[in-house]
C-alpha cells in the first residue's frame, strides 16, 4: 500500500485524497485495494460480520457453546483477557520511554500505543459481543455502582484507560491532520497521561486476574491462587514487550516503504528481549511461590499438573532463557520467534484460567463453537486492518520532518 502519486493534471489534491486515499484519486485508490491480503480480510469480514448480527438476533445460545455451567468462553478468555494482556505494550513502552527516559525505544512507542489502543478497543468490542445486554454498558458508569465487585473496577479502569490511550495517540493524529497547535497541546499531556495510564493498567491488568478469585471451587488449584492478580499483572508486562517485538518485526516488513530506515529495530528488539527475559524469570518464580503457598506439589503429578508444567516450563521458563540467550548473543531472529512463542504462551495462560482449568472437575465441559471462533478471528482481522489503515496514513512508524526536532512525543 505505498503512496505513489502520478503526476496530476489537477492543481492541489483534495483533502480527502491526500489524507484518506493515500494521495490517489478515488478510483485509483479503490483499485489499489485489490491485494491478496485485503481479499482475505474482506472474506473473513464477509463471513464474520453477518455472524455477529446472527448472534444479536438469535441470542448467545444460538451462536455459542456457552451453557449454564460454563458462562464464559473464548470471547472472554481470548478476545477480552488475552487481548488486554497483549495490548499492555502501550503502557510498558510509554513508561520505558517517557518515565524511565530510555530514548532508545522511542521509535516503537507510537506503534505500541496504537497497538494498545486498538487492542483494548477490540477487546471491548469482543466483550460487547459476549454481553447479554451490551446497551446497558453505561449503567456501571453512570447509574448503579457495585463497589465490592472486581468487575466494577475493571469497567471503570477500561473506560478510563481507553480514553487515556486515545488521548496518548492524539499527537500523531494531529500531525496527520496538520494541526501543530493542537498537537503541541496533546504532546504536553503525555507524561500525565502515561502516569495515569500505568496506574490504570496496574489496576485492571491485575483485576482481570482478580475476577477468578471468586471461583475457588471451580478453578483448578494449580491455577487458583490469591496471587492471581499479581500473576496477571506481571505476565502482562512480558506480554506487552513480546507483542511489541512481534508487531515491530511485522510492521517493518509490511510497511517497508514508510519506516525510518535509520531505526535500529534489531537493537530495540534485543533490548526488549532483555527486559522480557527478566520479567519472565521473575514471573516463573512468583508462580512457583503460589504452588508452594498452597502446598500443591502433589497435584503436579496429575494430567492437569502436567499441563501446568507445560505452561510453566515451556511457555514461561523456556522463553525466558531463549530471550536471555538471544539478547546476549545478538540473535535477533531467535528473539523474534521467542516473542511469538511468548505471545502464544500468554494466550495459553489466559485460556487456562478462564476456560481450560476452569470447571476442570465438572462433566459438562466447554469447547468453542465454530461461530465463536469465527467471530474472534473477525474481530482480530478488523483490528489489524484498522492498524494498517492508520499506519499507512499517520506518522506512526515514521516521523514527519516538520515535527522531528520539536518537543516530540
Amino acid at each position, binding site marked *: 500500500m505505498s503512496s505513489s502519486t502520478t503526476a496530476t493534471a489537477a492543481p492541489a489534491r483534495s483533502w480527502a485524497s491526500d489524507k484518506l486515499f493515500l494521495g490517489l484519486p478515488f478510483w485509483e485508490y479503490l483499485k489499489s485495494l485489490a491485494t491478496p491480503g485485503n481479499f482475505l480480510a474482506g472474506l473473513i469480514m464477509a463471513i464474520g460480520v453477518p455472524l455477529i448480527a446472527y448472534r444479536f438476533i438469535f441470542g448467545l445460545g444460538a451462536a455459542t457453546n456457552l451453557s449454564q455451567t460454563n458462562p464464559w468462553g473464548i470471547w472472554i478468555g481470548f478476545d477480552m483477557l488475552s487481548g488486554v494482556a497483549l495490548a499492555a505494550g502501550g503502557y510498558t513502552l510509554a513508561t520505558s520511554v517517557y518515565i524511565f527516559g530510555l530514548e532508545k525505544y522511542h521509535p516503537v512507542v507510537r506503534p505500541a500505543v496504537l497497538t494498545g489502543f486498538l487492542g483494548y478497543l477490540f477487546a471491548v468490542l469482543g466483550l460487547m459481543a459476549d454481553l447479554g445486554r451490551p446497551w446497558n454498558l453505561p449503567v456501571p458508569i453512570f447509574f448503579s455502582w457495585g463497589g465490592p465487585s472486581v468487575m466494577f473496577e475493571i469497567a471503570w479502569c477500561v473506560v478510563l484507560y481507553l480514553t487515556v490511550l486515545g488521548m496518548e495517540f492524539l499527537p500523531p493524529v494531529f500531525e496527520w491532520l496538520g494541526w501543530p497547535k493542537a498537537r503541541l497541546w496533546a504532546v504536553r499531556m503525555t507524561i500525565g497521561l502515561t502516569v495515569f495510564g500505568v496506574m490504570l493498567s496496574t489496576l485492571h491488568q491485575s483485576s482481570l486476574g482478580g475476577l477468578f478469585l471468586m471461583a*475457588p471451587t471451580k478453578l483448578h488449584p494449580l491455577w487458583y491462587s*490469591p496471587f492471581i492478580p499479581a500473576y496477571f499483572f506481571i505476565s502482562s508486562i512480558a506480554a506487552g514487550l513480546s507483542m511489541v517485538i512481534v508487531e515491530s518485526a511485522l510492521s517493518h516488513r509490511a510497511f517497508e516503504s514508510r519506516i*525510518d*530506515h*535509520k531505526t*535500529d529495530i*534489531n*537493537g530495540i528488539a*534485543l*533490548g526488549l528481549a*532483555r527486559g522480557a*527475559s*527478566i520479567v519472565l*524469570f*521473575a514471573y516463573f*518464580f512468583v508462580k*512457583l*511461590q503460589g504452588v*508452594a*503457598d*498452597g*502446598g500443591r506439589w502433589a497435584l503436579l503429578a496429575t494430567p492437569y499438573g502436567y499441563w501446568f508444567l507445560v505452561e510453566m516450563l515451556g511457555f514461561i521458563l523456556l522463553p525466558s532463557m531463549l*530471550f*536471555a540467550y538471544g*539478547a*546476549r*548473543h*545478538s540473535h*535477533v531472529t531467535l528473539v523474534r520467534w521467542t516473542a511469538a512463542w511468548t505471545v502464544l504462551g500468554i494466550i495459553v495462560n489466559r485460556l487456562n484460567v478462564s476456560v481450560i482449568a476452569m470447571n476442570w472437575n465438572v462433566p459438562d465441559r466447554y469447547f468453542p463453537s465454530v461461530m465463536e471462533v469465527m467471530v474472534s478471528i473477525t474481530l482480530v482481522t478488523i483490528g489489524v486492518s484498522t492498524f494498517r489503515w492508520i499506519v499507512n496514513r499517520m506518522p506512526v512508524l515514521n516521523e514527519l520532518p516538520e515535527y522531528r526536532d520539536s518537543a516530540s512525543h
Partner: protein
Amino acid sequence: MIPHDILTLYSAKMLEYGIAVLFLFLFIPFWRYVQGPAKVPAFATARSRTPVTRAAEWFLTPADRLFHRGHAWIMGGDDGLVTVGLDDFAAKLVGPFSRVSLPAVGASVGQGEQAWRLVAADGRSVDMLSPVDGTVVELNPALAASPALAERDPYGNGWLMKVRPSRLRANRINLLAGRAVHRWMEEAAAGLRGHFAPGLGALAQDGGVPVAGMARAVDPEGWDRLAAALLLTAEEDSDA
C-alpha cells in the same frame, strides 16, 4: 484468603522463603548473563545497499576499551592480561573474513607494528597493527572454526587474542579513550566518505547503513590498498 491450617503453614512458609532465597541467588547471575558483554551493533543488517552518509554513530565504540589508531582495541582484564581485537570500523571496512592470521602464542607484538592479517574471501588480505607491546598468551579458539565471528561480533565473541603487555603505561599514551574516540571515528568515517562521494550522485540527507565490506563497495579492484591505508598498514606508511 483461603485459610490454611497451621501445620501445613509451617512447611509451606519455609518452602516459600526457600524459593525466594533461591530466586535471589539465581537472579544475580541471570541478570549479568542477560546484560552480557555483547553489545548490539548500530546496524545489524550488513547487506543494505544504501551508502554511508552519517558518521560516528554508525560504528560502535564501547566505552570500556582503549582504541589504537590502527583500529584495534584493548580491554584490561583482572589477570594482568589485555584482550585485543579489531574495532567495528575495521570489521565493516574489510567485511567478512575467510581467515584471520594471528601471531603464534608466545610471539612478541609491538605497538604500531604489523601484528595480524585479515584474509577476505577473494584471497586479498589486509594487515592490522597491534595496539600494545607484549607477548601473545592466548588466541581466541572460536576464530579457527568461525572467522566470521570477528566481523559479526568484534567486541564480544570475536576477540582476537590475549596479550601480556610489557609497557602498558607507556602504550596508553598512544591509545584513545572516551570522547576522543568519537572524534577520531568521525574523522575516519569522513575520510571514508571522501572515497564514496566522487562515485555517487546526489545522496539522501539521512538514512544509510554501513555496508559490510565497505572498502570493496568503494573500490572493488583495489580495496585492499584502500583498507590498508585506512588501517595504517599501507606499504608507504610507517608505524605510529
